[in-house]
């Protein structure tokens, strides 16, 4: 399989031919390959043979088609994966994003049904997400608790908070008048493309600029490598840690709004369920190490789109819902295995082993 891929990539450009090995070692390449293969799979096996079709929908004022719905769904993954990338690059983890999504979604729906102005509802639910993120950040940075357990606690508590906000109901705000702006955010179109996807992309780019055009990204990475050493060079690791969890909470709240506003309904136990795992997968597929110290926002964004595409593939191919997790696992395993240096160096490795054997024989003789 590896040789076939090499052939493909070499055909795409001169740079690829010069640096096939480097390209193979790049995580972005494999995300793109995975995306292309998944789209090809869907195109071939889609029962209606319309997977790649794009129509102009006059009612919504935008394009419509399976790929567009995929992009719409990917917005929420983009948001949580971006926050997760920053947290993971400080050698932490944020397991609470799924629950924070549920909390912000529940808050928005509940406020809307209680008759609040839609912009105020959006603002408040974003602030709640920010607050939960700040609590995580404070516990991790000031008290020095382990990120895993801290955000695990928030994951448990967040589910409960969402239930308390809606009194255990799945609040439905679809009949509330004046909620159009929120609905537009999740389902609307600008220049023919989904608003939420463009908005998510904009936020990813803003975070990227903040990290790469200022010293912010380097500070985050240095905290991930060694907080003590970075403190000695004048960086304040506590502030950085606090900030990344706060950002992750805020972005999770945005994701929660996207997820609930698309149906204008919150499901307190299902909204955002398992999404922390998907976010972590997206981040890892994008080439960020869970050990911290380096990150790639572009990789995570691509990873998020791959995750959305896997989910779309599952729906398009009509895979039995029972088998969904298994299919998901297989795709992830294949992507990660293809990214492994061992596969790329297969030829060199065999040569080295043969040389070692010959050497051993020589020594024995």
């Amino acid at each position, binding site marked *: 399989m590896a040789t076939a891929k090499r052939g493909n990539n070499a055909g795409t450009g001169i740079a690829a031919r010069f640096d096939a090995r480097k390209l193979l070692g790049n995580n972005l390449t494999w995300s793109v390959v995975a995306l292309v293969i998944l789209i090809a799979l869907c195109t071939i096996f889609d029962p209606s043979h319309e997977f790649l079709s794009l129509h102009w929908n006059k009612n919504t004022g935008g394009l419509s088609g399976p790929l567009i719905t995929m992009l719409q769904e990917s917005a929420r993954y983009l948001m949580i994966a971006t926050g997760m990338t920053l947290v993971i690059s400080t*050698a932490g983890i944020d*397991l609470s994003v799924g629950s924070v999504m549920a909390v912000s979604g529940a808050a928005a729906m509940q406020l809307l049904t209680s008759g609040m102005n839609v912009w105020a509802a959006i603002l408040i639910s974003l602030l709640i997400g920010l607050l939960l993120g700040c609590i995580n950040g404070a*516990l991790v940075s000031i*008290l*020095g*608790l*382990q*990120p*895993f*357990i*801290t955000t*695990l*606690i*928030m*994951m*448990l*508590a967040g*589910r*409960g*908070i969402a*239930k*308390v906000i809606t*009194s*255990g109901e799945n609040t439905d705000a679809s009949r509330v008048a004046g909620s159009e702006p929120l609905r537009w955010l999740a389902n609307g179109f600008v220049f023919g493309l989904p608003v939420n996807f463009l908005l998510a992309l904009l936020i990813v780019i803003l975070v990227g600029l903040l990290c790469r055009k200022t010293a912010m990204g380097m500070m985050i990475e240095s905290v991930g*490598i*060694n*907080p*003590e*050493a970075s403190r000695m060079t004048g960086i304040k690791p506590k502030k950085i840690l606090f900030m990344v969890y706060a950002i992750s909470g805020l972005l999770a709240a945005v994701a929660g709004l996207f997820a609930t506003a698309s149906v204008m309904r919150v499901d307190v136990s299902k909204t955002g369920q398992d999404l922390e*795992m998907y976010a*972590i*997968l997206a981040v*890892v597929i994008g080439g960020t*190490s*869970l*050990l*911290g110290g380096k990150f790639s926002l572009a990789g995570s964004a691509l990873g998020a789109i791959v995750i959305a595409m896997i989910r779309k593939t599952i729906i398009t191919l009509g895979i*039995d819902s*029972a*088998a*969904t*997790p*298994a*299919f*998901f*696992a*297989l795709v*992830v*395993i294949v992507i*990660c*295995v293809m990214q*492994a*240096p*061992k*596969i790329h160096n297969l030829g060199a490795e065999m040569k080295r082993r043969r040389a070692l054997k010959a050497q051993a024989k020589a020594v024995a003789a």
Partner: protein
Amino acid sequence: MTSATANPATRNNLKTKSRAKKPALRINTQMIPTIAAVVIFICMIIMGQALFGTYTSLGFISSLFIDHAYLIILAVAMTLPVLTGGIDLSIGAIVAICGVVGMTLLNQGVNSWLVIVVMLLIGLAFGAIAGTLIEEFNMQPFIATLSTMFLARGIAAMISTDSLIAPENNNYGWIATTIKIIDNPKIKNDLSINAGVIIAAIVVAGGYILLHKTRTGRTIYAIGGSRSSAELMGLPVKRTQRIIYLTSGTLAALAAIVYTANIGSAKNTVGVGWELDAVASVVIGGTIVTGGFGYVLGSVIGALVRSTIDPLTSDFGVPSEWTTIVVGLMILIFVVLQRAVTAVGKKE
């Protein structure tokens, strides 16, 4: 990570200096979080006893162990990967697939011993897959075991999504048959155990021996301290990693046997979130998630704390929406207290 491992080490050196003066207080600084866990656990039991009056009864203690033997086994299973800085997220899903396969086979009239062997082999197989992905394909343990978790959960759902009830008159229930040690006139004062508790005790003892008395155990701590140093020292890192994930997978299967025997049924959704309960137990027991420090006995205390939180919340009469918040808060209070005790202990 380097600082996390370096910091306590330097503090440890300081401690050794002060230790020389006061030989009476010979407590390893690394043990302080675990000792704090024991102290706070005892406080929890005393509080429960003072408020509700049942927490020190033999019946409560018996049911604490009988109902949560599976969690103790899972906590031991989780301790090994966490000590190396890894994690095994697949244990909850392995419990599900083993339970579903086991109950299906039992209902088809397969010999119960054979069923037990098959279940253990399934756990072993998933451990082997995880170990191979981690060691051969450089996957991070979190992601490798996350994919085996999805895989196991998916296969379990493909086999059956019904609640499978164990047939009567099988030779499987012996694991759950309670044995009364102290028979009191009042049922709540009976001290009883079952084979599941004995299995859990054997697992804990085995975990202790593995970690503290064998070369493999020493290598596990060394990998957690610094994997590259362990490799440079010539320790068999790859082999040890494989052993770790094989063990955690097999122990998860064992937990499935104990749990399904106790409950008498299994479903594909059993064990959702148990991996997180197990991690919580391990962390409460004083193990650091980045690896290198921790004790298997601490994890047992952690599992007991995690199991005591549930009856405490229900005895406080917490409304159902609030349960997860209260459970979260209790773990938080516990971890913060532990942190405080540890900080004070290290200063002294």
